């Protein structure tokens, strides 16, 4: 039986806590609070009820017949795009916000890149009556003005981060700086299965419903386990959520699809495991994109949600042990798969999830027509309509959202 991490939060040589001492005691408290909450049937029943009644979980499994025909393999989609707020992220955030209520901290902070985790956090905080502050790189607030508006509508304060590269990694830095000063009253709703212990395993615990549900749904539909389970990997929360249920099923290939950007060989990508090296970033040892001196390198991807130079430590561990494999899909491959799903199934996927679809198309060639491939459709593409329309040349003029801001 697979049992990771160890009690100190290490997945083999990965993970751990590389954090200021000021946050160690709070992280210990969080670890204990989550361990207690997990073991409390009343808490877990309440979380289940919220996910069911509010977040539309469990999400359905959908056999994509026309996409399968084009792919040349049987493709089953786990429809996380149908969850409230449009992605798997709501599972994680409702769990962390409910834990914040249990601990009794009235204020929550979160970081966001494209804005999806920020929107999910603002949603959960409105639902559970928590004050919500979202840190977002200034560049991202400009690129994702609609999501900034969404968060504000939901009552959150959005703080543009003007330091460093003004993107997701800097938003995490700024959220951590806030947290060091506010930890007595504030919970940090971390957006992915990365960061210092206990975040990677806590986020996994909260997202693993994806795979637990899908495993049962595939068995019910096909009578057997899939040949492969495929998910996109940025920080890696949807992928670890899918993989966890299958880790002890040795015959099920686990494949994580990283953002290949312009191609890993160009250096303009976000394929952390494929193209990075082991190091320490944002509190954990894992693969990351770094230069010769260990300075973080900016990542590049058409998908804002995958545009992060780090990755969760458990993925590094699964890559290291060979239990999962990680391969890149370029922007072009992802957008081609995006287009195919739109045209064959009438489903507009998130560009993040389109990377998983691109990976599944490649895998189908390898595994052949008798194979069954489970793909986590981690989010819907409403937020990406503008990016995709621009990519495919469907918009002539920039859309003016408000005075001075173009998306």
């Amino acid at each position, binding site marked *: 039986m697979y049992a990771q991490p160890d009690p100190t939060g290490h997945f083999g040589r990965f993970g751990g806590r590389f954090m200021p001492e000021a946050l160690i005691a709070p992280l210990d408290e969080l670890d204990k609070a989550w361990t207690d909450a997990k073991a409390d049937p009343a808490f877990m029943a309440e979380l289940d009820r919220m996910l069911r009644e509010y977040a539309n979980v469990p999400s359905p499994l959908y056999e994509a017949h026309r996409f399968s025909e084009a792919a040349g393999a049987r493709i089953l989609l786990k429809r996380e795009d149908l969850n409230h707020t449009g992605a798997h992220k709501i599972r994680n955030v409702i769990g962390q916000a409910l834990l914040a209520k249990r601990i009794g901290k009235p204020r929550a902070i979160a970081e966001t890149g494209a804005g999806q985790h920020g929107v999910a956090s603002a949603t959960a905080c409105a639902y559970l009556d928590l004050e919500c502050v979202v840190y977002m790189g200034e560049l991202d607030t400009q690129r994702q003005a609609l999501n900034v508006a969404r968060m504000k509508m939901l009552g959150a304060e959005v703080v543009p981060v003007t330091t460093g590269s003004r993107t997701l990694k800097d938003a995490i830095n700024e959220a951590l700086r806030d947290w060091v000063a506010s930890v007595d009253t504030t919970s940090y709703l971390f957006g992915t299965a990365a960061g210092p212990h206990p975040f990677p395993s806590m986020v996994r615990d909260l997202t693993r419903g994806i795979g637990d549900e899908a495993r049962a749904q595939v068995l019910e539909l096909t009578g057997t386990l899939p040949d492969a389970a495929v998910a996109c990997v940025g920080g890696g929360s949807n992928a670890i959520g899918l993989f966890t249920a299958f880790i002890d099923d040795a015959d099920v290939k686990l494949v994580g699809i990283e953002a290949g950007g312009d191609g890993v060989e160009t250096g303009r990508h976000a394929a952390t495991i494929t193209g990075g090296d082991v190091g320490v970033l944002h*509190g954990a040892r894992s693969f990351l994109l770094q230069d010769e*001196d260990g300075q973080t390198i900016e990542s590049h991807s058409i998908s804002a949600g995958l545009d992060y130079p780090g990755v969760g430590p458990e993925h590094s561990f699964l890559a290291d042990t060979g239990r999962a494999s990680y391969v890149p899909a370029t922007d072009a491959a992802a957008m081609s798969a995006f287009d195919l799903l739109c045209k064959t199934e009438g489903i507009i996927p998130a560009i993040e999830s389109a990377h998983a679809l691109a990976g599944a198309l490649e895998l189908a060639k390898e595994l052949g027509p008798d194979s069954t491939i489970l793909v986590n459709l981690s989010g819907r593409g409403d937020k990406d309509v503008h990016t995709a329309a621009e990519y495919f040349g469907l918009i002539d003029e920039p859309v003016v959202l408000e005075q001075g801001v173009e998306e």
Partner: protein
Amino acid sequence: MSAIDELFVRTRAANRAALVGYLPAGFPSKELSVKAIEAMVDGGVDLVEVGLPYSDPVMDGPTIQAAADQALRAGTRTTDVIDVVRASAATGAPTVVMTYWNPVERFGVNRFAEALADAGGAGLITPDLIPDEAGEWVAASEQYGLDRIFLVAPSSTDARLAMTAEAASGFVYATAVMGVTGAREQTSALGPELVARLRKVTDKPVGVGLGVSNGDQAREVAAFADAVIVGSALVRCLLDAEDESAGLEAIRRLAQDLRAGVERT
């Protein structure tokens, strides 16, 4: 006995606190960062912290972030930091590097320790490396005779204070506030309490940092600490200066003011 141990023997004998000054290597340029260190030692700084500029400084406030950004944009490399340490150690002041962990791990922990010792460096301050994760560094520091300055915080439990002090050498770095680096109007009320808790579990010298920016504040902190640590206020001198010589003069004056404070007179 390390150079830092000897410093604290001297300052304790003189019934004063030691003055620790931080400046980042390569800010505003490699050459000027050396001059700035020389100016602060000239003004009375006893122990120099050379900052290694890092892309993701989560413990630092806006002042040190801005300086690190500028140093990185100017092309500062890890080997430049070692050069600055060599120049700093040549002033006679014990010199340590203050660095986030990844650049050390990337350089190679042993290789970094060897280069630091070779340059005359006295040790490392590691704001995001806790003793729990520091096995490789503890071994390397022992091999190369370097001090390990770990941090404690007001939130540290008594058990963690004892464990961290036990693992530390040279001195223990007590962060007096829950927050990031940066000058503050008032010194923290949490400082004296944290140091008192530390005294119960260790005889090692305790340095107090975060928020000290002038002689009066230094005097307050020197009343209960073995060392007063100042960073952002020194960096500010360079950020705000109209030209090079004005910046260096401002650093020298601030160091003199702080030094008068730590003399406890």
